[in-house]
């Protein structure tokens, strides 16, 4: 028995993981199905657009700007070992658009939006506001989940696009002000090097990460336990799950887009 106990523990963990995966998948599918079925709650959708998109702009912009700048410095320092300093604009562009832009925006959204959605919905659950919605003939998935998921699917790719541009701009500022690049050449090299597939992959990743971030916030919020501790646990679990899933999805999507 003692010999088998680690095996049993592993089995239990795998079963638990599969059960959670199944529940999250069903939840996500149900949430998505409500996106396409009336009634539609326009006010909630617009509020979610504002919360997820507009109000996330400062944190996304600052993160992308500093990362783009740091990336330019690193590439310049690393490239100098091979006399390849000139590739800074191209590598900053490709690094920001293909990877860092979507991932950083995804993680920032997980930190800012997933946590806020989970805490809000969990508090609503704890204070019986979700039950109140049901008694007022309003489906919680339709009223709370669908508008947030739809807004995230639409607005996070836009944020990623903005993050990509600001990140490249961060690299441009460092490259031209500190590293001695010619501004016109820097812009020309950046624009010429980027391909449509780079930008397309960035947008697809943004869409996927937005969907993950909003769905995780709603899922853990709706499943929150009682009291302040329940809200705290739901918030923590939602951010952890969203961050891990975003990084895993990023790996998968990068494999799909660029493995060949």
């Amino acid at each position: 028995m003692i010999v088998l106990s680690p095996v049993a523990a592993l089995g239990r963990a795998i079963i638990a993981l599969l059960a959670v995966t199944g529940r999250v998948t069903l939840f996500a599918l149900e949430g998505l199905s409500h996106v396409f079925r009336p009634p539609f709650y326009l006010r909630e959708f617009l509020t979610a657009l504002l919360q997820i998109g507009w109000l996330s702009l400062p944190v996304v912009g600052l993160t992308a700007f500093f990362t783009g700048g740091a990336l330019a410095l690193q590439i310049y320092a690393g490239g100098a070992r091979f006399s390849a300093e000139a590739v800074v604009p191209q590598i900053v562009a490709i690094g920001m658009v293909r990877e860092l832009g979507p991932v950083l925006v995804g993680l920032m959204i997980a930190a800012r939006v997933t946590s806020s959605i989970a805490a809000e919905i969990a508090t609503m659950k704890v204070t019986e506001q979700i039950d109140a919605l049901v008694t007022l003939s309003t489906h919680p998935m339709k009223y709370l989940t669908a508008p947030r998921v739809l807004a995230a699917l639409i607005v996070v790719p836009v944020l990623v696009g903005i993050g990509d541009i600001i990140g490249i701009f961060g690299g441009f500022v460092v490259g031209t002000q500190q590293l001695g690049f010619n501004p016109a050449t820097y812009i020309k090299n950046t624009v010429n090097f980027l391909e449509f597939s780079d930008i397309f992959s960035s947008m697809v990743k943004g869409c996927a990460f937005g969907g993950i971030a909003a769905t995780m916030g709603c899922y853990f919020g709706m499943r929150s336990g009682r009291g302040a501790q329940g809200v705290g646990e739901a918030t923590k679990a939602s951010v952890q799950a969203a961050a891990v899933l975003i990084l895993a999805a990023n790996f998968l999507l990068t494999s799909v887009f660029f493995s060949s």
Partner: protein
Amino acid sequence: MITLENVHKSFGPKQVLRGVDLTIPKGESMVIIGGSGTGKSVMLKSVLGLIAPDQGRILVDNEDVTKADRDAFLARFGMLFQGGALFDSLTVWQNVAFRLLRGSLKRPKSEAREIAIEKLRRVGLTADVADQFPSELSGGMQKRVGLARAIAAEPEIIFFDEPTTGLDPIMSGVINDLIREIVVEMGATAMTITHDMTSVRAIADKVAMLHGGQIKWTGPIADMDASGDPYLDQFIHGRAEGPIEAVR
């Protein structure tokens, strides 16, 4: 008429309802009493379909609640939650008119606002609270707003979950009187759960005592004091000694 037949509900190993049988005739005010954790809220939420019973049937006007069209079914209900359950992100009038701003009962915004303000007046609140947010109101005012929301769509059946919990005795009296007046005025069927005996005497036509997941006694309020039921007697007189075990 609301009928519960042999309703059972467990949460994991904990059996909360163990065969509840109860009938609430149309237009009557039934108050369910019982100690904390005896399953009063579970019973109420089962009638609303918020919790699915493991066994037994719940009928509203002879229609099984699990088979009824949810929207049409819920449109007949109003509910006052224990903590108010007002939506923090909406103003007071938007909370009250929630049902009138969306779904099958949707009205033009101006009409919905007018109805909301009228309902707020009905529960003793002035129109100037309409544009405030719930967090700006006191507990008693939040309860009144919750009551206004419960009656906004003129429901046939109203549920009150611990309507006086957390209120001072005077505000409790005000809420009890309001509930009684509104139920009589609307001719609604009412189901209230509480362990506040002042509320029971103010609101009830009939009383049911829930203990150990079963209805121990039910009858008209006038018979309550002379019921001879040891569980009910212990509860209404608040005695520590008796068949109901008190944890000390």
